[in-house]
């Protein structure tokens, strides 16, 4: 092995992953083929998220309830500061608005942190990675003869003595790490997935759980604080002028006292309850997801103890709240490297059969209502057909549907080498096709413990049609109502 030259120019260049710097030197610009503005990665992010401020802010798609949360907090606090604080700071102490101000500042800070940050989204597998995984799964399953159904795609690992099953995510094409789960609303796998919270307009996962917890904790203090001092205000006034007079003067003198109280009263119970619940979860190092499913039993010495718990409450709390904060894995503001193949567009059709099983833990009744709505809409639209006209909103690329024909004849167990893929779109197209190879697997996307898909959804016809349909669906763009309805149906069926 001869040490050679060529190491000179390397030293003054930044190490970037064998690809061009996206913002290249000006002398090369006339020869550049790509468009003038290089795209940032958030612009082609495959999940259903909204991005603001050029990728700095990331939220779920439906943010209506988040604005409601903001309005409730701002209006209630604003009214408190405007109308109750002057009186109270005179009568009792000016520390009251000061403390209230600090609490309010804390609440808003943690709320915005929770809502705007990346909850711990796992980026989808690159085509090479996905192909490699498929290959390994094929090897593990061995050759399947007719009649034998290969086991569903799970992997077992032993964590601290406990056997944990890792499930394969069909949308993201990865084996989910332990405690990760796929959020069907955001269409992302999230690490240490807790729940999707519409009140903050985002998923709650590994990276923003502590912000979420501090938010609900500080909000409980704030609501109790406001509630207590509004009552104090009314009582003090009533002592001056008599109770009935106090109430009569209420709209004029200190307006909205009742309204604030009402809002606070209801919030107090729900928020304090939620804080208590999450305190329990933190102290036992569980996620809402795991608790709802009853994954780990509480008693020591039983079969399924929690392998992630550190054993004592204090360490669990410290680990959850003061542990290190891992960085975002999705690099929203990075530029797309032209040499690195990106997953083509949003591909979320293949989540239908079982990847969304962990979404039974919606934290709000709104989700149930949404799901019901979707079911009703889905019932009105025919679901699985073999012609590509399913996606009413957007037609699939004609080139793709022709690929499915010849690909259907791929022999089993023959992985397509990544280096031979001609171009970007074919990459994801062909890797989407790989499920076609295993004819039996077409019916086996659900793991045994999940609810079977509703009757009529799985066509008993040829798996090729089935996979073809799935492939077509995988081309659908994100805004399709049909997709939502399918999603909703799967959610309901898995509940």
């Amino acid at each position, binding site marked *: 092995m001869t040490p050679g030259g060529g190491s000179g120019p390397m030293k003054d260049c930044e190490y970037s992953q064998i690809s061009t710097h996206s913002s290249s030197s000006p002398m090369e610009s006339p020869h550049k083929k790509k468009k003038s503005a290089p795209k940032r990665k958030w612009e082609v992010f495959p999940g259903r998220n909204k991005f603001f401020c050029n990728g700095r802010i990331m939220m779920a798609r439906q943010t209506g309830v988040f604005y409601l949360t903001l309005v409730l907090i701002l209006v209630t606090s604003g009214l408190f500061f405007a109308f109750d604080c002057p009186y109270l700071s005179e009568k009792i102490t000016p520390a009251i608005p000061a403390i209230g101000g600090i609490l309010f500042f804390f609440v808003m800070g943690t709320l915005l942190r929770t809502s705007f940050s990346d909850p711990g989204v796992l980026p989808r597998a690159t085509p090479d*990675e996905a192909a490699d995984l498929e290959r390994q799964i094929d090897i593990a399953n061995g050759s399947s003869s007719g009649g034998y159904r290969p086991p569903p795609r799970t992997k077992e690992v032993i964590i601290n003595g406990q056997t944990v099953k890792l499930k394969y995510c069909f949308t993201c094409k990865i084996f989910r790490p332990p405690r990760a789960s796929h959020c069907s609303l955001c269409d992302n796998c999230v690490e240490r997935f807790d729940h999707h919270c519409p009140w903050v307009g985002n998923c709650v996962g590994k990276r923003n759980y502590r912000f979420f917890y501090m938010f609900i904790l500080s909000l409980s203090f704030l609501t109790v604080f406001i509630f207590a001092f509004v009552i104090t205000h009314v009582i003090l006034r009533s002592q001056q002028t008599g109770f009935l007079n106090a109430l009569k003067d209420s709209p004029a003198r200190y307006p909205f006292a009742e309204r604030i109280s009402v809002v606070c009263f209801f919030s107090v119970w729900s928020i304090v309850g939620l804080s208590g619940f999450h305190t329990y979860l933190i102290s036992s190092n569980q996620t809402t997801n795991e608790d709802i499913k009853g994954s780990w039993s509480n008693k020591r010495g039983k079969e399924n103890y929690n392998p992630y718990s550190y054993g004592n409450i204090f360490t669990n709390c410290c680990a959850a709240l003061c542990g290190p904060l891992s960085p975002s894995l999705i690099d929203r503001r990075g530029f797309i490297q032209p040499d690195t193949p990106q997953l083509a567009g949003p591909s979320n059709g293949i989540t239908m059969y079982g990847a969304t099983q962990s979404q039974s833990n919606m934290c709000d009744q709104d989700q149930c209502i949404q799901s019901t709505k979707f079911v009703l809409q889905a019932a009105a639209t025919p679901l699985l057909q073999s012609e590509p006209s399913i996606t009413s909103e957007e037609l699939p690329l004609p080139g793709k549907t022709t690929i499915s024909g010849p690909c259907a004849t791929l022999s089993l167990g023959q992985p397509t080498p990544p280096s031979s893929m001609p171009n970007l779109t074919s990459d994801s197209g062909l890797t989407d096709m790989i499920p076609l190879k295993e004819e039996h697997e077409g019916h086996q996307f659900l793991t045994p413990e999940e609810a079977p898909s509703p009757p009529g959804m799985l066509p008993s016809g040829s798996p090729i049609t089935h996979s073809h349909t799935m492939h077509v669906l995988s081309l659908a763009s994100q805004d399709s109502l049909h997709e939502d309805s399918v999603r909703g149906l799967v959610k309901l069926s898995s509940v």
Partner: protein
Amino acid sequence: PCLQVHSLQELRRSASLATKVFVQRDYSEGTMCQFQTKFPPELESRIERQLFEETVKTLNSFYAEAEKIGGSSYLEGCLACATAYFIFLCMETHYEKVLKKISKYIQEQNEKIYAPRGLLLTDPLERGMRVIEISIYEDRCSSGSSSSGSSSSSSGGGGLGGR
């Protein structure tokens, strides 16, 4: 097969990507980021087992250091909490500092050990911390390629853009 030393940019130009090997995560200790030290069979002929294992073990120790729950991480966490996490806007977290160290280490390993053998390590951060991707390059072996490599390296110092 002739063995040539490639710089990181030349590797792409003068060699073609043969295949990629993925080193998966090791979850036996929980959700901490650790990678399997099992030696992939595809690398059998390309690199010594011991070198590879040492790379992975060092990476594992870096990640363990980043995720360590101890005095300094508590301090950082409490301070951040006290400022309603606004401090994250200006301060770099301990984890990020270690990640920078890791990226430097990987670059150094690539330059010293892997590129000369026609291999390239990808930082796991760019693959969602799921895998260590090792790209295996086949040399387009001829004497011409070494001269074209060196001449293009002198002219195309700015990188591979504009091709």
